[in-house]
């Protein structure tokens, strides 16, 4: 694999899968202090990302017509 290859885009499902992998590792009790702290920090970042994604679809349904969206985009 080339080092220049871009990392795959983060998605909600990939973030949740990684969080669960981290929790499984922590639950095993095999991680030392440094690894535990690193995993917890990574997990917290992922949880924050997931919470942001959920927040984005929890602010109340926003309905608009296609022409309204096009007008907004053109106004930018």
């Amino acid at each position, binding site marked *: 694999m080339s080092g220049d290859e871009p990392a795959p885009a983060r998605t909600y499902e990939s973030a949740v899968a990684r969080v669960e992998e981290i929790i499984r590792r922590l639950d095993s009790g095999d991680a030392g202090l440094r690894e535990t702290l690193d995993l917890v920090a990574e997990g917290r970042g992922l949880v924050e990302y997931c919470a942001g994604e959920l927040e984005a*679809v929890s602010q109340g349904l926003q309905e608009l017509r296609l022409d309204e969206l096009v007008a907004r985009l053109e106004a930018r």
Partner: protein
Amino acid sequence: MSESVPIVRGGDPSATASQLPGPFPVGVYAGRLRAQLRGFTRVQLTGEVFGFSRSRVRIYFELRDAQGAIQCSMWRDEFEALAVPLTDGLEVVVGGGCDYYVGNATSSPSFHFAVAELRIAGEGDLLAELARRRRRLLQDGLFEPQQRLARPSLPHTIGVVCGEHSKARDDILAGLRRRGWQGRLVWAFAPVQDRRAAPAIAAALRELAACGEIEVVIVARGGGSLADLYAFCDEALCRTVALLRVPVISSVGHHTDHTLIDDVAAVCCSTPTHAAEVAVPLDVTAARVRLAGDARRLRDHGHRALVVRARTLAALSRAPAQQLDRQRRRLHQLTRELRAGSRRQLQRSDAAVDGAARALARVSVRGAGADAGARRRDLERLALALGAHDPQRTLSRGYALVTDRDGLALGSADAARASRSLTLRFHDGAVDAEVPER
């Protein structure tokens, strides 16, 4: 008719003459063309009516499909005898052959398919045409591109193409509510039946995809006959869907219906509600609860990792102090035992002295005889010598024995200062005393 007339190009008289036959009078050529066209095999054609109009003696319309179109005409009296309610958008089957109106000096020529038979296409005709279109799409590999597109489990923005006042609209909203999804919904309303539907739906899909913010599109329509749903079998529409870069979820008709758009879409659903649930695969409410649980577990792990280790370190750091404390307690215990032992030893010594004195007294009584007087004197001397060592005698002379409160004799001023609490034993009793602090 002249066999060969040189053609002069650009007025250059030196230009060479064409090798083609002619020139012929155009009317002659047009007449021969008509004869040739009329010689074509008579056939049936099927397609959608467009631009239907009537003149005094003939009716005209175009017959169209995705690949092409042909101008058709029919004698008006023959058409009216059929009593077919012909309108634009209707799928029909016509029978006839090619014809050509040659025109003249004052009227334009025109090609047309001369219709001798005409009927509205039946379901069998539509299904046969559908099968042909499906085969073409399959041959062009257009069933797979949409299925290869990644679909987000939690889209922020969803596009919907449906009729503005359709029940499908309410069903989609109900499906999204069931998921707990409250993102942005972009409605692209379009006719979903008749000849305007397919181009309008295709245009809406292209515009939604061009916005760049739409992550998934639902195309929905309620049930109907195959003819009603035929717009969703339009080949141009299906090609548009297949090549769109945004995943399209189709829900057209009831679960028994199968239109061509279902073949090229990323997912085909039986109802608009189901389509909404497929567009948002994640149950947002449940996901929120699950995420909170994961966050709690992470926090607990982080807390435990630090606190447990901190406690262990604290315990290790306390170890030297605890060891000193243990040694100090042991030392005190030994000191107490030593003092108690000394007291007991002193008591035992006192008892031994008393016993010896009594034994000597008894021996002195039993030894009275010839040299009894000498022995008595010896005994008295010994008794006196022994009595000189009796501490009580010393006390009787005005001395005092200094002990601590446990009875341990203190033989020096330093020992007395160290003990602080003293007992002064005189011949007639004991007095407690305290050494004042300096």
